[in-house]
């Protein structure tokens, strides 16, 4: 059981409406590592995040995901969350009428129950809220409102990081958490992530831009294209992509695809 990996994704394939979106993704993340996934729009990055968190839009047709020695794909979304997986959504949902306080209290206590702990007392909970709000520099008024209701784009992203701070996940998936943020907000969000991280917290950062990676420095950078990870390297790859764009990746990938198809014939 004592695998050296926090998460091990093997040959993962998934389809939406019978259209294959993930075409065999493999990725291994050790505790404490930061991985960046980059790649053009539509290549399947969010779909990967959805599959890992248990959203049923995409149907897994092949492959395995082992998280801390357990079969992740057999778990419900809530079980995965309680086991320590957290997704910062690319498009956080507004939920009118559900208060942030009630939402977080329920989430925290479900997680505590899962770990065999008593629910937090009201005062301990409020103290925790206050502490984490300061950590991610989120406006106090926001947490008195309904979940994301009427929040600006930047506030929604900050709110995702606030929730991450509250739940202290083992593995955080940040899906374009930087997009739509101005440079100040980006800095706050990125520093928030760094402050939340413990040495063994792993992060998968999905992004288009190098600028977030200046703050959250990855150990590995992967490029996803057309449902596959087509290239993996160190942080220098992100810089190269920033400079050269994705076209060369596309060309290389398409070429190798052709070669592969021709070979098979």
């Amino acid at each position, binding site marked *: 059981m004592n695998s050296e990996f926090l998460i091990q994704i093997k040959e993962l394939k998934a389809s939406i409406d019978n259209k294959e979106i993930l075409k065999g993704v493999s990725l291994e993340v050790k505790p404490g590592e930061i991985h960046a996934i980059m790649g053009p729009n539509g290549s399947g990055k969010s779909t990967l995040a959805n599959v890992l968190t248990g959203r049923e839009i995409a149907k897994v047709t092949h492959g395995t995901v082992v998280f801390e020695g357990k079969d992740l794909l057999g778990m419900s979304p809530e079980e995965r969350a309680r086991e320590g997986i957290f997704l910062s959504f690319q498009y956080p949902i507004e*939920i009118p009428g*559900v208060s942030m306080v009630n939402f977080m209290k*329920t*989430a925290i206590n479900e997680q505590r129950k899962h770990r065999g702990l008593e629910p937090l007392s009201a005062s301990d909970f409020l103290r925790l809220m206050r502490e984490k709000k300061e950590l991610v520099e989120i406006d106090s008024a926001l947490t008195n409102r309904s979940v994301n209701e009427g929040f600006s784009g930047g506030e929604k992203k900050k709110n995702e990081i606030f*929730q991450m701070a509250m739940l202290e996940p083992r593995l955080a998936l940040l899906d374009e958490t930087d997009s739509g943020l101005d440079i100040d907000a980006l800095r706050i969000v990125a520093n928030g992530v760094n402050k939340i991280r413990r040495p063994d917290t792993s992060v998968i950062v999905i992004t288009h831009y190098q600028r977030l990676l200046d703050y959250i420095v990855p150990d590995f950078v992967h490029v996803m294209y057309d449902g596959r990870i087509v290239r993996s390297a160190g942080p220098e790859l992100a810089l190269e992509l920033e400079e050269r764009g994705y076209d060369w990746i596309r060309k290389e990938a398409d070429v190798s695809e052709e070669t592969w198809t021709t070979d098979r014939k």
Partner: protein
Amino acid sequence: MDYRPEVIKALTELWSGSYKTFLKDSPDIYNRYRAGAFDDFLRMGIPDRKNEAYKYTNLEKSFGYRYEKYYSPVPADFKEAEKFHCEVEDLDVWNMVLLNGFFPHGEEGLVMLPGGIWVGSMKAAAKQFPALVEKHYNKYASNENDGLVPLNTALASDGLFLYAPRKTSYTKPIQIVNLLHSDKDIFAQDRNLVIVEEGAQLSLLVCDHALSPQHYLTNTVTEVFVGQNARFEIIRVQNQHNNSGKITHTFIHQERDSYASSNNITLHGGLVRNATWHSLEGENSETHSYGLFFADKQQHVANFVKVDHAAPNCNSTQLFKGVLDDNSSGAFNGRIMVHQNAQKTNAYQSNNNIILSDTARMDTKPQLEIYADDVKCSHGATVGQLDEDALFYLRSRGIDEHEAKLMLMFGFAHDVIKNISIEALRDRIDNLVLQRLRGELSRCASCAIQCN
């Protein structure tokens, strides 16, 4: 087979003996309308689905049932009522208990609250405030569209009288708890009159409970006068059982610069139909009609609203929501009528419903009639499932699917509840709804009054 001739026959028999029995000591102010009203009832009958306003509501389940008696209290009943030793748990409201539409203390019940507001029985009011009652009684109820209103006018013998004289106000809401309790199946009617005079302010919470499992049918008519610059809010919480039928007709008449708000919260009932009529007769007035219901099993809940913009510069909103499960059904019929002189009208209507099963059914129908040209009017209706994205969002934070659904339904419902102006009431009703969603709502547990 049409169930109605039988029922009408039984009601006609009841009517012919009524002055000897339950209307024996009824005041003339009320009696003078009865014969005409009964004729109106016979002419119109019990509404069926050919009546536009009842298109989606079949009353047979409640009206077709043979009730053992038409309720009229006898002294023994009042003794029985005394047994409901009720204790006020919550000091945020002033409250009064009505048993089967009657005051347990009989006719003497008319009291003045601090601040000068009168509350008590219609019978007592006819004696103490004859001119006032005469001025308002049966002036706002429309006996022309729905046979059940004249049926009430003809046969109801008592009900709640609430009177806020000029410029009076009472800081707490007044709570009326309507208890149904009997060892027989009963058909009851209560007739209520609320008068909020110029500059006065009043909040009324009406809770309908059924304490025994018998079959009940209540046909309630409430007339409300809201004077110039006056403010009135009514919140109705209905928590009965599957054998009970509850039909309400509330007519709110508003003078200029007035404000009124109605909120019908139906937590449980076999057949419920709330009709709320808002009549904006004076300019610069504002009126709000809210409703929220939860239905499951074979229950049916209908809301009918009519807002009449009869004066310029008035604002109205309608917000109705429903959650339906199992084989339940619901109906919403929201009408807005803007009269020719009602320029600068703002009228808004929204009806949203969540259906949790494949077999539940919701019919929603807006009707707009606009005869003025400078008018802002909007309406929209939705019938759908719980938002899958929102559900996933909650679950992705570790919240159980069942709990996440409850949270979403609560959020959906809270959108209506949040419009209640008094925070203590809002919180209490939030709690009631949570209990309802968790299936923990028992008969009196939710009430300010704990009866034993």
